[in-house]
């Protein structure tokens, strides 16, 4: 019993340690700094209220993200939850589109020329179901099984959403790269 519970001070300290990650996540989810702060604050309030249900030694970051994610859907997406559908854009690989522009140089060189703010915009433009999985796996580095627990979906769903999210991201980044002249559109330009 005693070793299952965390001392309140320890709990607080560990929880605060995940603040930057939660805030970043809240920013991506809400796309608004004020709403993000509110969401984070409410997440900690709920975590505090339910701290007895947290087991010491388990993944607190995942636990906090699960709380935040549920609050987010309750608050901002409740009305949309049913309506959010995932469009299938088909297979789109930025690499294929850029292959001709990549030439013989390092294949990641073109990525270095993409502005970071543009990547953030592209992530924020994703539909919420795609955005949250990119946030968990790519930004925060959660394993598929942890992401699946947080999102309450099977691992296969995590994988398929992640794949589609990345396709969408690549498509948006490609459009940006063409518009800003980073690439010429390649020989096999989009139809």
């Amino acid at each position, binding site marked *: 019993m005693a070793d299952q519970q965390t001392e309140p001070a320890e709990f607080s300290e560990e929880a605060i340690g995940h603040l930057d990650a939660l805030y970043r996540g809240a920013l991506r989810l809400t796309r608004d700094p004020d709403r993000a702060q509110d969401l984070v604050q409410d997440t900690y309030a709920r975590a505090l209220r339910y701290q007895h249900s947290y087991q010491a030694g388990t993944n607190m970051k995942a636990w906090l993200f699960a709380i935040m994610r549920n609050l987010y859907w309750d608050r901002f997406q409740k009305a949309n939850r049913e309506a959010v559908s995932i469009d299938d854009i088909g297979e789109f690989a930025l690499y294929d589109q850029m292959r001709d522009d990549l030439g013989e140089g390092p*294949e990641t060189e073109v*990525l270095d020329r993409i502005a970071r703010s543009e990547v*953030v915009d592209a992530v924020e433009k994703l539909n919420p179901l795609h955005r949250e999985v990119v946030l968990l796996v790519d930004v925060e580095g959660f394993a598929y099984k942890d992401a699946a627990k947080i999102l309450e979906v099977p691992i296969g769903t995590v994988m398929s959403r992640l794949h589609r999210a990345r396709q969408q991201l690549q498509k948006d980044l490609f459009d940006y790269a063409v518009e800003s002249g980073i690439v010429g559109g390649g020989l096999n330009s989009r139809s």
Partner: protein
Amino acid sequence: MYDCENCVRRLDQLVDKELSGPEVEEVHLHLGACGDCTRRYRFQEGLKRLIRVSGSERAPDALRERLREQLKA
């Protein structure tokens, strides 16, 4: 024998470090022999890294202070 199609299908899991040891070995066996898949793999890895480092905002100090108070209570 492992072909490009098989390899490409596993690239997501490879960059996410979600393949088992033997599976990683299999993919790398193919990568070692296929320049195109190797470049595709590095590109996907680079993209994942780019996504990770792009949003690196830190929480505002005022929020941190508020939360410390809240958690103390």
